[in-house]
């Protein structure tokens, strides 16, 4: 095991960096797509709500692997596309991976945000209206901040699934952490290659979970102490 890490350590680090790069980018880009998508899903105009629903239905109803295949293998079918300048980007596995991950996570995230928005207490919305807020201001100041707090744990779960799903990048030849582990395994037929990668993923997710929970507590600190925390003896007030 030690020998394996000594020989291939740099490879694992490289893979780790690629994984982080792609996951972070797709989380940020996915969120930027997800918020407008969630708002469009709530629209009363069917011409806006329906295409967005179809997008979310497709990306949540098919495996991520198939979405990667569509981008990586599928697009080559359209010869006219290959003559355009976008092809410079689309022929790269890295970009196919980024686009696939982003569209996939945006679909799931938009559902989570929509769920959060639907759960915002009515009283808060009425209060905002009573204050004379415009719709835009109400969304910006009341609905979205509250929706994110409600959706926070579910959103964290989605990011964990995205991180695990990013291992599929290796199937379209991206050398992410999983991809590098497969290369190392193929060289020596040593199962430890997978064990090392598995431990790295596990630690990443473990640390992420802790950070996410701490952030949740900070986001909700305005709610005061939780009932469970109230059982603790009160601090002396001097």
């Amino acid at each position, binding site marked *: 095991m030690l020998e394996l890490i000594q020989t291939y350590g740099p490879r694992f680090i490289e893979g780790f960096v690629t994984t982080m790069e792609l996951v972070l980018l797709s989380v940020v880009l996915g969120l930027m797509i997800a918020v407008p998508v969630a708002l469009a899903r709530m629209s009363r105009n069917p011409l806006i709500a329906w295409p967005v629903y179809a997008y979310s239905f497709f990306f949540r*109803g*098919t*495996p991520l*692997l198939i979405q990667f295949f569509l981008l990586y293998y*599928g697009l080559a079918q359209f010869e006219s596309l290959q003559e355009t300048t976008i092809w410079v980007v689309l022929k790269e596995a890295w970009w196919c991976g980024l686009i696939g991950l982003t569209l996939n996570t945006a679909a799931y995230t938009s559902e989570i945000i929509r769920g959060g928005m639907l759960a915002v207490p009515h009283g808060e919305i009425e209060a905002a209206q009573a204050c004379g807020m415009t719709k835009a201001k109400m969304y910006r100041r009341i609905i979205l901040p509250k929706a994110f707090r409600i959706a926070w744990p579910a959103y964290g779960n989605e990011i964990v699934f995205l991180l695990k799903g*990013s291992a599929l990048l290796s199937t379209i030849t991206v050398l992410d952490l999983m991809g590098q582990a497969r290369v190392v395994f193929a060289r020596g037929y040593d199962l430890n290659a997978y064990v090392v990668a598995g431990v790295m993923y*596990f630690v990443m997710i473990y640390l992420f979970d802790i950070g996410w929970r701490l952030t949740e507590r900070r986001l909700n600190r305005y709610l005061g102490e939780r009932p469970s925390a109230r059982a603790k003896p009160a601090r002396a007030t001097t």
Partner: protein
Amino acid sequence: MWEVLQFGDQGWGDEIATGAVFTVLLALASVVVGIVVGLLIASAKLSKSPLVSRAAFGFTSIFRGVPELLIILIIYNGTEIALRSLVGLFGFETAIEVPKFAAATFALGMVFGAFSSEVFRGAFLAVPKGQVEAGLACGMSNRQIFFRIRMPQMWRFALPGLGNLWLILLKDTSLAAIIALDELAREAQVAAENGDAPFTVIMAAAIIYLILTAASRGGLNRAERWADKGVRRV
């Protein structure tokens, strides 16, 4: 563009169709394994022994923290290596082929079991305590209470969570493509690499997945309504 979906030697239609059948079979086999594993892990989590429940929670967090793809590869290649060295002990030098379907079923079943144990645990705890007390008052043993009161009533609470996990599982069967099991995603990949209309074949596979997930959602909604029909609505 459409010729690629023909059946027979000309197209990939029959391969895609058998792939779809394999996908459904793999999902069904995995869900059976997964429910058994999930129930075992859930009862371990509810165990009074801290050692047993700790181990059960550890099991879940390992499967939550490691990509499914890696789990499939570790189980498949790990079994292969273990079998080879086992045979090596007796002085043979042959590679033994690990049955791919069994390996994939086992791996996906373990993942399903790890997640469903949380669903089952919550469902067991959701059965009102008064029911258990009523069983005790009737003089039932712990075993009888478990099988006659908690277990039958737990399913209704577990159904929505299990339904979600089933939808995830259905999509995760595509990961078995990595060990070249001939399910839908793998057949689509092969057809894309060897045919001249990759987008058409992969899109066909995607639509089959969509049909499977949409049909599952419909079926699950009906199952939930059926399970709740004897329950007073608040």
